[in-house]
Every structure is written in structure tokens, then in C-alpha cells.
């Protein structure tokens, strides 16, 4: 009853949006996201997907149109990457503040200058405070599954926040893998229809959306988003579990995934496609009788810090990998968020893979060795060329 296709990550995202029967797509091309919106354009052109495809003139307008469409009651989808995401920055806040459940695929890519189209996660991590739920995929199957889950999470009345599904540029966007596609009727049965009750542009029931909120009200809106983020943790887990039950695929508890954490003293915390390589290395070492572990963060916002702490309770030396850098701090965002909660452990930050710099299996093994001897709180740049 399912279909298996050998497809790229961007195709997986497009297929998922189609399975979710989105009503409005507003999109603008940017490498390595483009193939996603091309695929969606094909679907609409061939009548495979009944949606309005708005060929906007920029990412800023792509997000603006998505907000308008979602506020008008449509299931809206868009996709972007890097400079495009940065151009959306202003309206990302508006999407969250206006509580519209837009779903967006983001192909993780470095930011200029110098211009660089290759993978790192600086783009989405720079948007961490916009109020978007951020999910990260390890492989193309997870891309498809996450996009489907994203609609259900975003549209949940306890959440009503936009969701960004991230996949590593080229590593996933342009690599083909077998992906199992569920039947559309089952997907729609799982997600349900988007029936906004809180706010909806209906001439029969006029409502003002996006009003001016003076100091008497603004803070409460932020608190409401924070509460929704907190609610989202449970919703993400529940949606994940329901999905696992229905479609027979599970990813940890939906927010994090533990891999060989019970016995390992040396563990890596990481996000995205690199987790695949790390798992391979863990398996390899296990055969040699060495126990090392991985904590994969699947949901970066809201950050399930209690779960992370609990999952790492047996760890001694924690290597936190970041494909981004907060310049002037010499730390990546994940380290900044996680390390302060692990006071009883040694934490070391590894800056890896910026702008598409290769991360080899040897690098991963090197990190496991290094974290055992490295100084607590240190930052190490991996693969940096030295003159």
C-alpha cells in the first residue's frame, strides 16, 4: 500500500507537501532548495496537486504571502535556504506572532560573504529566536515524515506556530535515497484539515489580525508564544508517536534520539545528516568493544533541555557539534544552549563543516578521542587549514 521512490531530500519535502494537500504554495528559488519548488510547480501544472502556486518575486514576499494565505484559512507551504531565509527574517517574527501555522522547508546552507552555496546550519540557527518551531532531519525519509508531522504540529490548537523543517543542503537535498511514501488518504486522515477558529479572514465574521500591541499587551504575546512552545514539546512527541503507530517509523521520542547512550561515557550531541555518519562510527567502535554514544537533536526549538539532560545522565565527556558559529563568542548555538545545563559534565564545542567543509568519519572518531582529553569548555575548530 505504500510506495517506495528513490528521491532527493527536496523531492521528499515536495512529496510530503503534496500528500498534505496544501492549498497555497508561495515560493522563490534558491540553491539547494530550488528542486523542491520546481517539483511542486510540476505537481500543480500536471493537476496532481490542487493548489494556488504563487510565483512571488522574493523570499520576503514568499513568507508574506504564506502568512496571508494561512491567515485566510489555507494550508500554506513554502521552502527556502540561506540568503532567502535571511531575507525572510523580519516576517518570520510576524508569522510566529500572528500564530499562523505555515510550514516551511529550509535547506541548510552557509551565509555570505563569501558567497557559498554549501551546507552548514548558520541560516536556521540564526533564526532561533523568531518563534518558529525548528525540526532537523537526518535522512530523506525523515524529511518526508517531518514535513507531514510539521503540519499536524503547527495546526494543533495548543501550538499554532509556524514550523521549519531543516535538511542539510546537498548532503540531503541532492542525494537520492529510497523513501517510503504513505498513501495520501492515510496522511490526510492523520493530519486532518486546517480549520482555524482563533483567527480567520472571514467577511462573515470580521476580525483584525496583526494589530498594534502597545506595552500593555506586547509582553503577553511573547509569553503566549513561549507557552505554545512549551505545549509543542508534548504535541511533537504525541504527533511523532501517533505517526509511528500509523506509519511504522519512529525517531527516538520525536524530539531527541538516543543512540548507545546507556554505556557510553564519551558522547556527541549533534543535529541533522551528520548523525548518520556518527551512528556508523558508533556501530564500528561497538564491534571493537568501545562504547561511544550520540544524542541527536531532532527538535531544536522548542529545545527539550530536560530530555537532553536526562538522556546524557550517564555521559562524562560531551562533545557538542555545531555547524554554525556565533562570531565573537567562539561558540556554536547548540553549545551555547546545551552546555550550561550540563554543569556536572565536561563539555567541549566542536565547530565543524562550515560552508560545506567535509566532515569525515575519521574526524568523528577524532572528536571522540579529543573530548576525553580536551579541556572543559574549550572550542575546537575541526578541519581548519592552518598556514
Amino acid at each position, binding site marked *: 500500500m505504500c510506495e517506495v521512490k528513490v528521491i532527493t531530500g527536496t523531492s521528499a519535502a515536495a512529496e510530503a507537501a503534496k500528500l498534505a494537500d496544501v492549498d497555497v504554495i508561495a515560493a522563490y528559488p534558491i540553491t539547494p532548495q530550488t528542486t523542491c519548488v520546481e517539483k511542486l510547480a510540476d505537481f500543480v501544472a500536471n493537476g496532481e496537486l490542487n493548489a494556488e502556486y504563487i510565483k512571488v518575486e522574493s523570499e520576503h514576499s514568499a513568507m508574506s504571502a504564506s502568512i*496571508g494565505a494561512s491567515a485566510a484559512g489555507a494550508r500554506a507551504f513554502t521552502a527556502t535556504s540561506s540568503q532567502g531565509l535571511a531575507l525572510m527574517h523580519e516576517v518570520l517574527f510576524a508569522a510566529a506572532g500572528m500564530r499562523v501555522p505555515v510550514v516551511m522547508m529550509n535547506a541548510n546552507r552557509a551565509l555570505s560573504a563569501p558567497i557559498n552555496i554549501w551546507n552548514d546550519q548558520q541560516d536556521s540557527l540564526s533564526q532561533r529566536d523568531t518563534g518558529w518551531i525548528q525540526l532537523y532531519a537526518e535522512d530523506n525519509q525523515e524529511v518526508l515524515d517531518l514535513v507531514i508531522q510539521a503540519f499536524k504540529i503547527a495546526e494543533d490548537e495548543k501550538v499554532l506556530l509556524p514550523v521549519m523543517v531543516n535538511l542539510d543542503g546537498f548532503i540531503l537535498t541532492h542525494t537520492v535515497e529510497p523513501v517510503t511514501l504513505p498513501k495520501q488518504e492515510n496522511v490526510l486522515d492523520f493530519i486532518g484539515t486546517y480549520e482555524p477558529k482563533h483567527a480567520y479572514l472571514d467577511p462573515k465574521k470580521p476580525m483584525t489580525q496583526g494589530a498594534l500591541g502597545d506595552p500593555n*499587551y506586547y509582553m503577553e504575546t511573547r509569553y503566549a508564544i513561549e507557552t505554545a512552545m512549551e505545549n509543542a514539546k508534548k504535541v511533537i512527541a504525541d504527533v511523532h508517536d501517533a505517526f509511528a503507530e500509523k506509519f511504522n517509523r519512529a525517531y527516538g521520542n520525536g524530539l531527541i534520539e538516543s543512540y548507545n547512550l546507556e554505556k557510553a561515557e564519551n558522547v556527541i550531541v549533534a543535529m541533522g545528516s551528520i548523525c548518520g555518519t556518527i551512528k556508523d562510527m558508533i556501530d564500528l567502535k561497538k564491534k571493537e568493544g568501545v562504547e561511544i554514544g550520540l544524542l541527536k537533536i531532532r527538535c531544536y526549538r522548542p529545545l527539550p533541555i530536560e530530555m537532553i539532560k536526562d538522556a546524557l545522565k550517564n555521559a562524562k565527556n560531551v562533545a557538542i557539534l555545531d555547524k554554525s558559529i556565533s562570531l565573537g563568542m567562539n561558540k556554536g548555538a547548540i553549545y551555547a544552549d546545551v552546555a550550561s545545563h550540563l554543569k556536572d559534565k565536561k563539555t567541549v564545542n566542536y565547530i565543524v563543516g562550515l560552508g560545506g567543509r567535509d566532515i569525515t568519519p575519521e574526524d568523528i572518531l577524532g572528536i571522540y578521542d579529543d573530548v576525553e582529553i580536551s579541556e572543559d569548555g574549550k572550542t575546537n575548530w575541526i578541519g581548519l587549514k592552518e598556514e
Partner: protein
Amino acid sequence: MTGSQFPREELFAPGHRGCAGCGAAIVARLALKAAGKNTIVANATGCLEVMTTPYPETAWRVPWIHVAFENAAAVASGVEGAVAALKRKRGKYGEEKVNVIAFGGDGGTADIGFQALSGAMERGHDMVYIMYDNEAYMNTGVQRSGSTPLMASTTTSPAGSLIRGETMPKKNMPMIMAAHGIPYVATASISYPEDFMNKVKKACEINGPAFIQVMQPCTTGWGYPADKTIELGRLAVETGVWPLFEIENGEFKLNYKPLKRKPIEEYLKVQKRYRHLNPEEISVIQKTIDMKCDEYGL
């Protein structure tokens, strides 16, 4: 339609926070009367947005959305797309036509929102874009925009001894919009309400994008007594500063021709933004107006 045929119902409620005599409020009130209830409004950041929606109050009796300064046309694109999709797929929004109207000030239209507007017009969305033109950024305290006229004094184009106010002529938005090949472009003035409302009505009825630039005198930005708003709007038309015309499917039509154009000085002298002008400078402005009127057959 003539005056008495327009509905009495007010879809723009009284009690907003605009300045006394604000022309922007009149724009919204007249436009909604003409468009009717089955309308969704997208509004750019600016005076109109800020003065009408201080939470928990709202002056809008139609569904209304504001997202940011530069994106009213893009937001309206999304709304229009959603209405089309939901009508087709789920029978939502009913049989009747839903008018999607975007309001943007001159800054939100001619400057920062220009790209989004151009995109929306070029894509052929069925929407009406109303540029309410008070010829400066009023919401941030009267700074020049691309629509500020020559020699007008604003806080960023102040009249000094060396530089005499705005140095560049006003950006010609209607002609730029007409060059997009859209089916309907018009200018209007709140001082000619029937003309304005008929244009809004026509724009709503037309399939595809329509653009209306409506002059809206601003007591605060222009510096004149609050009870003179309508008078100033009329003077702008009578002097030829603000010709009333429409361009329907490429065809230009002048809507009103004053019997005898009044000298520009009558319009300038009542406004503080022009009070620095000497007779020589006034005659420069007069000449530019004369040239424009020749071109338009006024």
C-alpha cells in the same frame, strides 16, 4: 453611482486615533463603502494601520490583516490565493466575489513596498491596491518618500539656505503601474468622493489587478488647519497638481477638467511644508505643473 446610492452603512467605524482632519481615515471609509462587506483588507504599516488598530480596539468592520511595512501587496497575494483555493477545493468563502484590497501609504508603496507591489501586479492577482498618498512618511514623523513633491520640506528634506526642500520630483506611480499592463489604474482624491468610490467599485469588479493612487491631505505633515483637508484636496485638483484620470486596459481618460486652472500659489501658500518658497521657486513649480497638464490635456 451617485452620492445617495452609496450605502449608509459604515464599514470603517468612527473612533480611530488619527489626527483631527486626517485624510487617510476618509480614504478607508470611502473605499470600504464602495467595496462593501464582502471585502478582506491587507494593510501596510503606517498611519492608517497604527491609528485604526491599537489592540484591543479596531476601526475595521471587515476582516483586516497587517504584517509589515513593505509587504501589503504580497500578503494580499496570499489572501487572494487562499480564497481562490478554498473556494475551489472546499466551497469556503461562498459564491459571491470576495474583494481583496491592499492599502499602503506612499512610502509603503512607492519605496519599500515597491518590489512586492510590482510583483503582485505583474502576477495578475485579482486585487485592488490603494495607495493613500500623503506625500511623506507620516507615521515616523514626516520624512520624505519617493512620492514627496519637488521642494516640499520634510524632516529629511528640510528647507535650508542651501537646499530648498525635496530636490527630486514626485515618482510617477500611476504610469509605472500602467506600464505593468494591468487592466485598471486610476488617480483619485478624497475631495471628490463619488469619483473615488466609483473607481474603487470599478476596480473591485474588474478581474485582475487594479491600482488606485488617492491623494490624502495630511494636516500634520503638510501643516494646515484640521478643517481644511477637503478644501486642500480640491485645490490640488483645481490647480492641476493632482489630475484625476483612469487608464483602463491601456486607454487614458481624464475624468475632470477644471474650467480654468488656479495658480499653484493658492495651493502652496496654505501649507507649512511650502512656506520657505520664494516667488521664483513657486514659478519653477508652476512650470513643472504646466508641463504635466499639457501632457495630460488639462
